[in-house]
């Protein structure tokens, strides 16, 4: 199977994401200016500061030519995984519900965090158990998840809240401690923590690898 990792001007974690993907499958960078997904089974929208995050995080990147292809890909059920800035881009593009606001502390926060798997029955979390804690770092300036109350209720009922920050750990002020969500169809996910920075015991933990592994298995199963 193959991951495609998008590179926008201003992406920062795209090579990290590529390295993480390569542990579980083939992987290739996709240029923001191309409409081409190069046959990727899973599209990763990586972290960073696409277009400097000027105006609003993700606001400008969502208009990239490649995002048109991603929208079509997602509409056809393709797996799309947005990390941090990627999450912001997917929300701005309307591929995920909600929005990401500036952290309550109004500061960038880089910290190793525990997140809890709320739904292990998604293409992104199948190698995890429900309730399992994953140690994954977060690092962002605008990660406070917001959606209107009724929408949150509906998302919870529909199993779209996939990851929550573990109780007790201070985070960014996200509604209902939400760290990661999917779209209604369940094939697009965004999360603020950085699983690509949790795939190597030397640099922290390996818990983030489970998400990439889930995706690789899912894509392989679909292909088979």
């Amino acid at each position, binding site marked *: 199977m193959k991951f495609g990792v998008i590179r926008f001007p201003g992406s920062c974690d795209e090579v990290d994401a590529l390295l993480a993907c390569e542990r579980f499958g083939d992987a290739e960078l996709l240029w923001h200016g191309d409409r081409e997904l190069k046959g990727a089974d899973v599209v990763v929208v990586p972290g960073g500061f696409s277009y400097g995050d000027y*105006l*609003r995080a993700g*606001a*400008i990147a969502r*208009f990239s030519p490649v995002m048109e292809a991603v929208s079509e890909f997602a509409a056809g059920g393709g797996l799309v995984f947005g990390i941090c800035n990627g999450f912001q881009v997917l929300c*701005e593009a309307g591929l995920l519900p*909600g*929005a990401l*606001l*500036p*952290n*309550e*502390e*109004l500061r960038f926060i880089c910290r190793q965090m525990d997140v809890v798997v709320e739904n292990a029955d998604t293409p992104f979390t199948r190698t995890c158990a429900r309730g399992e804690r994953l140690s994954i770092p977060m690092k962002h300036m605008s990660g*406070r998840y*917001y*959606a209107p109350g009724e929408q949150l209720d509906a998302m919870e009922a529909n199993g779209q809240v996939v990851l929550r920050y573990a109780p007790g750990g201070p985070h960014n*002020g996200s509604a209902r401690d939400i760290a990661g969500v999917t779209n209604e169809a369940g094939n697009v996910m965004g999360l603020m923590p950085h699983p690509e920075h949790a795939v190597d015991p030397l640099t922290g933990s390996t818990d983030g690898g489970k998400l990439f592994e889930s995706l690789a298995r899912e894509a392989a199963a679909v292909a088979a």
Partner: protein
Amino acid sequence: MGSQVGGEALVRARVLIRPKEGILDPQGQAVERALPALGFQGVSHVHVGRMVELDVEDASQLDQMCEQLLSNPLIEDYEIVESA
């Protein structure tokens, strides 16, 4: 400050964008907290938003620009002020 009009049909516009009512605005709160310490009393309902100034040839495009790019309708309200 004054806005100057450049070409023939240009419209100078300002787009004012603010967090929607009911959404936590930590920036506004931070300003509200800081003011008394500086000796300013009696200030309330502080909100911090954005202002975008621009010259447009076709002012009828402004609404669309606001909805598609300059603001995020889920979390922000906007207002357009044309100045010439």
